[in-house]
């Protein structure tokens, strides 16, 4: 079976003055359709860079990235925009709704750029809003909604384009723990319904909601496997943390 996401030996090197910083230092990773993967790591681990590359917002310095069998690592800006539009749905920490547009217009945006007709746009946007339970708020401005509701709007926006992959970048970072759990529950539900979800977070307790964890450190993958393995959530040399992790996981 063809992998949905396939990173092979990906490097991302930034030139900071005289020094070359390896944000990604030879990463190989595959994600299959229907998976729920959490990419975890502390700040500076390269997870944001990984997310940018998986999200077609950036291209690797070397190595290849195939998305649904298409090599997207050498595409120009407009081709990448098209891939983002058709295949990826983004959920951001800051929701990133456009404040001047109402909820419905925000959800319609990716369809607008995808060239979908007005009536079809409206139908699909309403469908996505119904899926997140906010169809009745479609004429509201984002500022009139709570944080949790705004994040659900951004999930609807990600869903409206019927993407192959949903990329969630710290989706609970700006929410209190209860609404955060709600949003995570949502992502799990989407995954259960067949959507592929890639979650990027620094928080182990969120990462364990996924089914698979990919742990990054210093631009390298140090763990890739079942989310319920204690090794998934700890630094290999940190035995104290391993004890905590067992408690969190109840194993």
């Amino acid at each position, binding site marked *: 079976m063809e992998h949905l996401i396939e990173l092979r030996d990906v490097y991302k090197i930034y030139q900071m003055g005289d020094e070359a910083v390896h944000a990604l230092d030879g990463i190989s990773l595959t994600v299959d359709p229907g998976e729920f993967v959490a990419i975890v790591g502390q700040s500076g681990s390269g997870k944001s860079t990984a997310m*940018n590359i998986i*999200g077609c*917002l*950036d291209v690797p310095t070397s190595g290849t990235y195939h998305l649904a069998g298409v090599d997207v690592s050498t595409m120009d*800006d*407009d081709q990448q*925009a*098209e891939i*983002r*539009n*058709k295949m990826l749905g*983004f959920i*951001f920490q800051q929701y*990133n*709704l*456009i404040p*001047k*547009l109402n909820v419905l*217009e925000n959800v319609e*945006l*990716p369809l*607008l*750029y*995808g060239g979908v007709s007005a009536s079809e746009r409206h139908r699909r946007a309403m469908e996505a809003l119904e899926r997140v339970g906010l169809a009745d708020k479609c004429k509201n401005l984002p500022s009139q909604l709570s944080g949790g509701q705004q994040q659900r709007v951004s999930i609807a*926006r990600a869903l409206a*384009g019927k993407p192959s992959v949903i990329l969630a970048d710290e989706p609970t970072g700006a929410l209190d723990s209860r609404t955060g759990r709600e949003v995570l529950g949502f992502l799990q539900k989407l995954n259960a319904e067949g959507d592929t979800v890639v979650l990027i977070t620094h928080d182990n307790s969120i990462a364990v909601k996924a089914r698979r964890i990919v742990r990054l450190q210093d631009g390298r993958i140090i763990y890739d496997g079942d989310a319920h393995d204690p090794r998934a959530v700890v630094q290999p040399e940190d035995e104290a943390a391993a004890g905590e992790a067992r408690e969190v996981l109840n194993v």
Partner: protein
Amino acid sequence: MNVGQSFRLAIKSLLTSKARALLTMLGIIIGVAAVIVIVSLGTGMQTYMNSQFEQVGVNLIQVMVYEQPGNRNADADDFYELAEKYPQYIDSVTPALTISGIVRHGADEYERTSVTGVSETVYNPETSQTVNGEQLEDGRFLSYVDVERNQHVCVVGSYLNEAMFGGRGVGQSLTIGGVPFTVIGTMRETADSTEGSGDDFIYVPYGLAPQLNGAAGGSGMNGYLVASTSEDTSSAAKGVIESMLFRIYEDSSWYQVITMAEMMSMMDSMLGVLMTILIVIAAISLVVGGIGIMNIMLVSVTERTREIGIRKSLGAKGRDIRGQFIIEAGTTSAIGGVIGILLGILLANVFTAVVGMVMPTAEGFAAIPSAGGILVSFGVSVGIGVLFGYLPANKAAKLNPIDALRYD
């Protein structure tokens, strides 16, 4: 492309900061209003001038002859003979001969007064004014008998009437080159009644010109106003006048023959040059307005960096973003253009009213904005917005989505 949404967004962002929008549009508003007012005034002036010409007579031909010292000169009799010879072309002749005799009243000398020898035809009793537009105030104008018999009578302008006679000129006398004249009429003020102005003149019967000039020993420039039988025969009449003058002078630099039609087109082209210069100056304001729009668009791009990042992450291509900002700039300048057009129409009407009030003689003058001018200024203002919006829009289109998303 999402033209509809970009347009609505542009209107929305203009409405959310009205003061800023107004200041941004000010240059365009002033520029467009100025262009509309200038074009309206120019067209109004042209229409007015043409109607004035028509009132005086489109069949008139103005002839200027410079006196050639020591040789034979063309005189009024030559013109009257020509009129008799070509009655199919020439209807009438009105001489206007320059007289150089010094004007005196008592001990006072009036050196700058222009003395002109004319016939009674220079005054049209139907319109109650001379071909120069002067109207009678008191007394009467020169009559056929005065001219025929070379009577020593004269008509004076308002300056002399005031300065010499304190406003009661009719019946008084003055001397020109030592020859006494009786004032039979005074004319109404046309300029400002000062020395050397358009009100400082004397009309005498033209037949006295050789005598008066002989006494002063002067030479000068003589004018003849020839009316052709119709507008169509005016060029034929011009031809016979020119050939007559060439026979006498054998050199075309001693005289000048201009038909009213030629004069009209000369005035029109002069007005055209003047208007072009004014429009160019007004256009500078449009350019300044365009720079204002560019400036505010650059600010707007910076302010909305995050929005640009979001749109890009959702699949907006460079041209989508560029289009959005260009439409916004175009909308801003178009609204400015519409306000400018309305202001221009208002000002043109105000000017018409003011001119009507200040100059009652300029009756029939109206500054009317033309539909073509309005359309062109609207088009130009939109064009300027698009032109000056391109640079900021391009900057927005080239933003890196990662940096744009992280921007606060």
